[in-house]
């Protein structure tokens, strides 16, 4: 499955700002099952400086500055991504993945291997998920028991968040603490992902935040509108001897071909799609649109032309 993806973010400033320094984490990652075929980052006005580098987590970060007065900033990431879930380690077929219990996972995490050392840092406090409360632990403990499979428990946790939490884009901000989201049981995808990560860490399992996109399908019989997709977030749990397993609590599913991954981090703070410091006064308004469409492959196109 090949997707064409356009992620457009724009800021409008009431008063012109004199300059800004920004970073963008919007380049889809490549890994087994996801291949980045083409990628472009367009910035308007043209940036004064631009540099890409790879961060600690292996994500691609674009640093750019615009060093002149501006009233509007637009960042458009265009990419072509080949998604083939079938190439990934199949979660559902793996016995290790499905049957490793919490107690077994804890034991295996004590062995020192580069993979485990790397995974274990996702057990520690991070900027937005720290000092995990007893409420979080209690919420997690309902699903996680020593002798139960980690996969099953995580799957149940995802389902509980999906059914018990209300999607409410007006409730939270990026700074809303996990405890508050858990208390109110509402929020958006990144809140749900962070609640789940907090739960997993509270029972001693490494968990990471995944930032990316999801393809949405139009209601039956209607044509898909441009820009109705969204940037998205979900979480991933580490099952020793198997690896990372993704879960999407906002949609109650294990991400497959409709999910495209841009970045991993410990929480949202590590991987915001766009972040910057601007110099100026006054307010700004932001708008984001994401458009994901399947691309017909070349063979198909040629066949169509011949017909």
């Amino acid at each position, binding site marked *: 499955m090949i997707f064409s993806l356009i992620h457009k*973010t724009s*800021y409008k400033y009431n008063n012109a*700002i*004199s*300059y*800004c*320094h*920004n*970073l963008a984490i919007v380049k889809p990652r490549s890994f087994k099952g996801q291949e980045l075929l083409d990628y472009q980052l367009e910035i308007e006005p043209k940036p*004064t*400086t631009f*540099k890409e*580098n*790879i*961060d*600690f*987590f292996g994500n691609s970060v674009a*640093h750019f*500055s615009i*060093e002149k007065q501006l009233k509007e900033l637009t960042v458009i990431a265009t990419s072509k991504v080949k998604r083939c879930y079938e190439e990934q380690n199949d979660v559902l077929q793996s016995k290790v993945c499905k049957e490793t219990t919490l107690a077994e996972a804890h034991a295996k995490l004590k062995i*020192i291997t*580069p993979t485990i*050392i790397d995974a*274990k*840092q996702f057990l*520690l*406090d991070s900027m937005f998920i720290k000092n995990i409360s007893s409420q979080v632990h209690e919420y997690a403990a309902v699903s996680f028991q020593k002798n139960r499979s980690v996969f099953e428990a995580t799957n149940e946790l995802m389902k509980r968040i999906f059914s018990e939490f209300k999607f409410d*884009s007006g409730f939270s*901000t*990026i700074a809303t603490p996990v405890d508050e989201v858990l208390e109110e049981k509402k929020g*958006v*995808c*990144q809140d749900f992902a962070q609640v789940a990560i907090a739960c997993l860490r509270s029972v001693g399992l490494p968990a990471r935040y995944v930032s990316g996109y*999801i393809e949405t399908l139009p209601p039956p019989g209607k044509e898909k509108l441009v820009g109705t997709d*969204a*940037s*998205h*977030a979900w979480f991933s749990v580490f099952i020793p001897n198997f690896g990372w397993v993704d879960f999407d609590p*906002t949609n109650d599913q294990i991400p497959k071909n409709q999910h495209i991954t841009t970045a991993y981090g410990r929480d*949202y703070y*590590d991987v*915001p*799609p*766009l*972040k*910057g*410091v*601007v*110099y*100026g*006064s006054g307010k*700004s308004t*932001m708008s*984001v649109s994401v458009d994901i469409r399947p691309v017909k492959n070349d063979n198909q196109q040629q066949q169509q032309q011949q017909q």
Partner: protein
Amino acid sequence: MTKLPVTAFFKNYFKDFKNYDEVLKSDMSINPKWEKLLTNFSDLGIDELNKRQDDLDWLLSENGVTYNVYNDPKGLNRPWNLNLIPFVINADEWKTVEKGLQQRAKLLDLVLKDIYGKQELVKNGIVPSEIIFAHRGFLRPCHQIQYKIAQHLLIYSADLARGPDGRMWVVNDRAEAPSGMGYALENRFSIQQVVPDFFKEINVKQPFGFFKDLNDLLVNSATQNKENPTIVILTPGPHNETYFEHAYLSSFLGYPLVKGNDLVVREDKVWIKTLKGLIQVDVIYRRVDDAYTDPLELKGDSYLGVTGLLNVVRQKNVVVMNPIGSGVLENPGLIPFMNSVCKYFLEEELILPQIASWWCGQEKELEFVLENIKKLVVKPIDNTHREHIYFCEFLTDDEIEALKKEILAKPFRYVAQEKISFSTAPNLTKKHLEPRKVMCRTFAVAKENSYSIMPGGLVRVAAEKEELKLSSQKGGTSKDFWVTNDLKSSLKKRKRYHWHHSVSNSFAGIENLPSNTAENLFWSGRYLARTLVTARYVRMVLNQMSDAEFNKRESDQESLHILYQSITHLTSIFPGFTGKNKENAFKNPLKEIATVLFDKTQIGSLAHALFSFKNSYYSLRNLWSRDMWRVYDMLQKEWECFDKDDHENIPKVTKLLDSIITKLIAFIGLIEESILVEQGLLLYFIGLQMEFATMTIDKTRALLSISHHEDIEYEILESLLNSHESLNIYRYSFRSYLDIQNVIQLILLDKSYARSLKYQLNRISKDIFKLPKRTETNELTNVQKHILKACEIIENTSASALAKVDENKIKRADLDSLLASISDAIHETSMSLTDMYFNHSKEQKQLINQNHTY
């Protein structure tokens, strides 16, 4: 004079508190390494010694040596304490310490490179991963940054103390932005000045070579290997606990002291904002903590750093010293593993012993710690400041339980250390010597693949006899630190602290004046003028009040009301004596006047102006001379000690104002002769004159815009001249009865009288034209245009035109509107000056987005 043998001083030395001591051995004999110093010491006699200690305290306070304690009820800038008796280490022993420090610095440099590079220590299981990954000083954005310089750890500091085995032990590592070397240097200067007698026949190593090495390091580490690199010292500002030192090193090394907003990142380079424009910075010696250095990639709410700095470091276009992220080395979690690390990297044993430490992230160690907790000292791996250290022997059972719970929740965050009784050294108190625990802060700077060690350092002394924790914050004192050798030699010719210094001059000149310094000087001028004019004005009104009480004339009452109202207009503290509040305020004018003088929260009050001046003043402390410190200090003390109950007591307040005014004038006089125009005096003058001019206008408008009956007008004119300190000049110039036209002529229009508005405006204009221009064109800048407009208005008017009263015989509308338009022009001048010279940028804002809305 009572002259006693050395031993007499130690008679009851161990009376209250016996400990392992640096000087006095258990058989009560004196350590021979100290003998010469103690002989020199006792030769002075106790009375003289006490006098010298007083001299020392006085000298330090005169030099403005201070440190700050955050949220300290005593306020900013506590005096620095230095005990008369130095701490002595023999050169033989020092040689080992020096080697040990070099080894440890070298080792930590390798650890730092590894943490942000290959991470072999973690991958090979030599250091458990949590010790690095769970440490808040481990900054992931710094991962894999490459540097051109061989060493990454450039400045290193270690706290040492003597353990029971007689060796010097490492207690703490400091690598983020080590402080103390400036205090150490000032301690040495002060002791040399106050008790040169102590040095008789003793060979004390001097630290100047070390500072030369520091300077060479700064110069040589410039990425472009320029001959004259631009080096700055980055400070968080006057509220930081060691701000004195930042300013001190700035003066001593000759590099500008800057705050985050003095610097800006453009085109992947760092620039300093100066009056002339932007100048590229090559090296930043920073005293801002790691996480605060870049709000873009690190702590987003930091206003102390420079946005985009980390990316400039990544591009190798600037060197930050120490590198951002080096705070991860301030990590007691490393201590239990340091021996293995040393073997791994250097195949050596550690030279300097460390305190026995247990990292709670390991099961056996955790068990041991929980069982023996009462005997241990517990600290988090990433916060070694005193308030986060648990001295378990002093904790209650409940506190112990709470601590255990905390440890068990995140065992990998804690380290427990053996409680050790470190050695004491003699401290001079009023009558005798007392043993006090001491800790030595030592310093290393990178030099030719190794490290140069300061001979000596900063010795800190516990505040109380049995105090375990050592901290300047808690009110302890300090000592000069002597490394001596046995070579017979008289006190060497005192080396002056000069070295060939091609760098400092390159940054002199008004054009290179950092914008922030320029702005502070400008505002110092404005606040000083405001303080002086307000004080004089209120004093004049208080005098009139006393006169009126004495004379009991009706006209006095009316003119007093006008004066009261003018106070409100002058200070803009509304409603004051105006509006609905009027009648009430007239009944009890002193209450309102007290507000105008003493209420710090009212913008426009005398207290507020003084407070605002204080802020600019401290930000500029590297510019002020000692006399200025003294005068300012007296002024400040007098103001703060004024009794609140006397706020409405006319004679006492008048006396206070007299004294404040005198000191302000002395201070203003000193500024003019202590600071060079290139250092920014020009900006100070512009600010000063601008505020004088504005206030002349405000006063004149408040008093003369309305025409009054002849008697009253006379009173008003006299008051105006009085508050302007111009009555004598008037009499000299006109030899006449007070006349409105003449007064206007003198106060507003006289070309050569320094207190007239015209003179002030012309002066501002002249100074503004001396400011550096950004372009070569002859086109006028906005600043120049606005001030020329003000000058033009005043040039094209006459006293008779201004004195004219309208048909209703009430208002002097022309005077009022003309002064209003001059006032506007001055305001515009100030705004465009700020825009052009100070704000190369606007306020910084975090672009917050909520991107995920699905």
